[in-house]
């Protein structure tokens, strides 16, 4: 295990060490200590490696991650794993707003709760939240899966495109063009797989599926009241 003390080294040195890892290097397991809630820790990584961050992190931890597996042992600030391409990011605590925003791929696991706009504009990422999500989660979600083992706040999936949302608990309200949809065996299998991969002990059959009614895909003045 290789250790990087962020307090001693500073952000740039920690990130450059991880970003500059040579192809084929055997230094693929890293621990970052003393993160002190700093922003942009372990962002822009693009090689297979594991990074364990021991403590809370600020904004944009794991931003634009490719291939790396990052675990935050604590809570995370705004924009956790924003625009992730592949790999995984896991947070053992809670995550602030816009977790997984615009993510194109990979798996984001939030063991606690996620605040508002979780999965906003997601483009292929899979997000699994052990607790609940705040309002406007899945706003303009394009592709991928958002799994919520707890409850969802207001306006879930507002203006959603082709992303698939699964919620076990209650939903305060659905956003524009978001409707409850049939849970087919294929959807159940996908959900089961996501729960297993994320280590969530939840019964897939307790979930409901939500997605786009596809009524707003072409601007129609007669549907202006729907916005």
């Amino acid at each position: 295990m290789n250790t990087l003390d962020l307090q001693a080294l500073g952000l740039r040195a920690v990130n450059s060490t991880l970003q500059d890892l040579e192809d084929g290097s055997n230094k693929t397991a890293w621990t970052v200590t003393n993160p002190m809630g700093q922003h942009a820790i372990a962002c822009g990584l693009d090689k297979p490696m594991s990074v364990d961050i021991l403590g809370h992190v600020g904004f944009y931890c794991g931003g634009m991650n490719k291939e790396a597996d990052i675990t935050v042992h604590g809570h995370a600030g705004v924009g956790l794993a924003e625009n992730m391409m592949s790999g995984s990011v896991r947070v053992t605590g809670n995550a602030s707003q816009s977790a997984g925003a615009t993510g194109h791929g990979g798996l984001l696991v939030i063991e606690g709760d996620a605040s508002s706009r979780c999965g906003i504009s997601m483009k292929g990422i899979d997000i699994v939240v052990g607790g609940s999500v705040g309002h406007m989660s899945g706003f303009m979600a394009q592709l991928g899966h958002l799994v919520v083992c707890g409850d969802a706040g207001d306006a879930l999936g507002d203006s959603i495109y082709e992303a698939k949302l699964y919620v076990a608990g209650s939903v305060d309200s659905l956003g524009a063009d978001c409707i409850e949809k049939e849970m087919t065996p294929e959807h159940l299998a996908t959900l089961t797989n996501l729960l297993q991969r994320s280590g969530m002990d939840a019964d897939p059959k307790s979930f409901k599926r939500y997605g786009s009614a596809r009524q707003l895909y072409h601007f129609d003045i007669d549907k202006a009241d729907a916005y």
Partner: protein
Amino acid sequence: MAEQKHNSQPRAAARASATFDEYTLSEIRRAASTGIYDIRGAGAKRALPHFDDLLFLGASISRYPLEGYRERCGTEVTLGDRFASKPLQLKIPITIAGMSFGSLSGQAKEALGRGANAAGTSTTTGDGGMTQEERGHSKLLVYQYLPSRYGMNPDDLRKADAIEIVVGQGAKPGGGGMLLGQKINKRVAGMRSLPEGIDQRSACRHPDWTGPDDLEIKILELREITRGEKPIFVKIGGSRPYYDTALAVKSGADVVVLDGMQGGTAATQNVFIEHVGMPTLACIRPAVQALQELDMHRKVQLVVSGGIRNGADVAKAMALGADAVSIGTAALVAMGDNDPRWESEYNALGTTAGSYDAWHEGRDPAGITTQDPELAGRLDPVVAGKRLANYLGVMTLEAQTIARACGKNHVHNLEPEDLCALTVEAAAMAKVPLAGTAWVPGTPVS
């Protein structure tokens, strides 16, 4: 008999209303007929105070001119040397503004790259990400970081020569956009992770930051991902240029791009284009004032766009404090947009060459604002690129001509003292004296 008497009486000529003019009447009829607002491309078309309302004074007994065709007048500009380790080095102070593949054809994007390369300047991506062709044909490419994040990925971010965080656009400060389904072919849809053929909303707010404190952290993240190499531009629409410039500087921007309301768009409501934002002329001095008060003028570069048409506009923007300008609409025209050679086809679309602005519909006869293969094939990227290079060259020569006449050996040495205004409005906005007077409206009389 009585009727004859009536007809022989003199009558006043039919008088059209200045308020309900011909265009206004037609728009009322159009709205009444369709039930939907008008959407179009391009920027504000109404008459606005602009660079034409300013004049250069030229040299005189108290100012020495430089010899035309002999003495050097520099045009090079460095963008982004505040923090970035690899700032952008341009030969001319005229850049190509952000325009997306999707709104423009692949041929048009290639032509922009070819023209910019020949002139020694940069092009800019738009909403929808970076295409390989675009990167390949642009030696210097600015990668826009937009609220939609369509096509955004760290590899392209690192391939870019600079990153432009788009907060606003002059044609629609506070607005997003909508790329209509007819322009969403398989490739465009794939780049945006959306189904083919559906309307695609470009968001007006960034999904993961709000306000200057967050922006500072976002800039930190982008610098971390790109190892501090890339200049970070922040593009703002011309609405509150003093505060937005100050906040962009506070947030850590290397360059501020300021787009006035004459700046073009691919598609926005006409009411938005014509009634939101400020003229470019009114935006520059407040932005420069903010930079000066922060001791950041010429340290954080200011790029001005929105209605730049010729070398005189370039020189005037420089004189008011800009470090460079950016062109979009003019570049498209140089390549062949709205060219009279397509007049019959413009007529068939219900418009005329010079007025065509339905850039969102994808039926551009010139093959520029379209994804239709047949139409796009009309534009020869090599020829169009050469035309753009010629145009950029002419603008640069014109700006140099004016700068020399004002005794300046670099276009950046032009200053407000070189200008006067033809109208009270322009004098107030540009903060230069009304021609023939010492009066600068809005400033205390000394």
